[in-house]
């Protein structure tokens, strides 16, 4: 009973939030709704007894959208509406609706034919975190390590790009420019 109520509540909240993300012209509304929607999604994980994934969803997306805010702060005046310059409105809307329908079809087809079953059904007495650890380090070890390497490469390239002026303090730069 409570689960059903909670499920519909979270569904409405999530869909509403993401609609605001798409339709709002104010960057601040969009970003805040994105953060809210991502946090509400964790509700579904909690409903499915996947506590760990739910909490990870909150922690990861809090930090990630915080970075989006940082860019928003640099690129927009967040208290004003963004002037959008969209031509060919009909084509864009038509294509996006079509692709959404395709996506739903692709995802729902296996459910409809009843062929979905858990590859790794949860074992009694083994916790959430242990199960994730077991699967990550056996079946999905290679994708896991590949993702780690990709992240490492991205991090190193980020550091190299910034490294040029890393050791200089603002005072050094002013001295170099002859302002002090």
């Amino acid at each position, binding site marked *: 009973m409570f689960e059903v109520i909670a499920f519909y509540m979270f569904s409405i909240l999530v869909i509403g939030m993401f609609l605001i993300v798409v339709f709002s012209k104010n960057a601040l509304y969009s970003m805040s709704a994105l953060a809210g929607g991502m946090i509400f999604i964790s509700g579904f994980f909690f409903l499915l007894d996947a506590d760990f994934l739910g909490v990870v969803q909150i922690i990861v997306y809090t*930090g990630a959208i915080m970075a989006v805010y940082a860019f928003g702060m640099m690129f927009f005046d967040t208290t004003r509406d963004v002037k959008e310059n969209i031509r060919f409105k009909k084509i864009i809307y038509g294509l996006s609706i079509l692709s959404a329908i395709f996506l739903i079809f692709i995802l729902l087809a296996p459910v409809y034919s009843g062929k979905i079953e858990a590859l790794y059904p949860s074992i009694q007495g083994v916790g959430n975190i242990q199960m994730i650890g077991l699967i990550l380090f056996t079946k999905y070890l290679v994708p896991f390590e590949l993702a780690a390497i990709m992240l490492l490469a991205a991090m190193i390239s980020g550091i190299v790009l910034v490294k040029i002026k890393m050791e200089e303090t603002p005072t050094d730069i002013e001295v170099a420019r002859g302002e002090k």
Partner: protein
Amino acid sequence: MIETALIVETVVKAVIALAVVAGMGAFATFIERKILAFMQRRLGPMHVGPYGLLQLAADGIKLFTKEDIIPQNVVKPIFVIAPVIASASAFVAIAAVPYFPEFTVFGYTIHPIISDINVGLLFIMGAASVGMYGPLLAGLSSHNKWSLLGGARAVIQLLSFEVVSGLSILAPIMMIGSLSLIDMNDYQIGGVANWLIWKQPLAFVLFAIAGFAETNRTPFDLIEFEAEIVSGYATEYSGMRWGLFFIGEYANMITISVLVSIIFLGGYNDIWFIPGAIAMLIKVSLWIFLFLWVRAAWPHVRPDQLMWVCWKVLMPLALINVLITGIVLV
């Protein structure tokens, strides 16, 4: 019937925890003014009531009855919701905190924790990091340059301390093998010698520093530092909305104090003749006192210094700590 009892119990516990933590947070503002005054050889609030104790009620009445001002050019919905996020997330975090050992009233065993989820520690840290959205949204929606600077500082603060607090807590988690705070408490049963602080001193120091950054306390109070950015994100706020931010901050202080006490300082286990609940109160009070002492004793750091210390000093130390713990455990 069992379900109804569970719901009633949870609601009662939630209301009590909310009232007690909010009350303690309000009282902490009074204690803070007194202790800061003594450290600076002043008397602090003295006129209202005995020893200035009723100053608290006077401040409360003032905050509640002040006119609610919403400035002209702000983004109104975000401006209104930001203080609510700051305080609500602080109170959501206390849902997974066990305060006292379980006790029995009229034959009914009560666990003083609202919801014992098995990832309690992660949940608290997640809720606390959502709390940083309060200052950020306030800063962005205020249409004020000082507020914007405060919001920008909130971003770098979150991106700096979150890594350190996560990595520093990883080593104790590896030793205990559970994310539940009750398991962490039970791991340290049996006196002061079994406290985790002796096995993980480095993790303790790192987590404490990250806790100071998480609660915006001096020396990391850079998002509302008066001398540089007026009042930071809270510049445009007044009355109860301003008050909500600070209720959230003090509730966070209490949560961090409880977390440190449970993870590193033996939790609510009995010490010698002191019962567990009293021991917990003493530890939390001492930790709150430390927060205030640090505020009186230290100047604050610059934002770039915070990033420097978090990413170049604390994070490598935390990683080394995790590595050593792993080698020792294997």
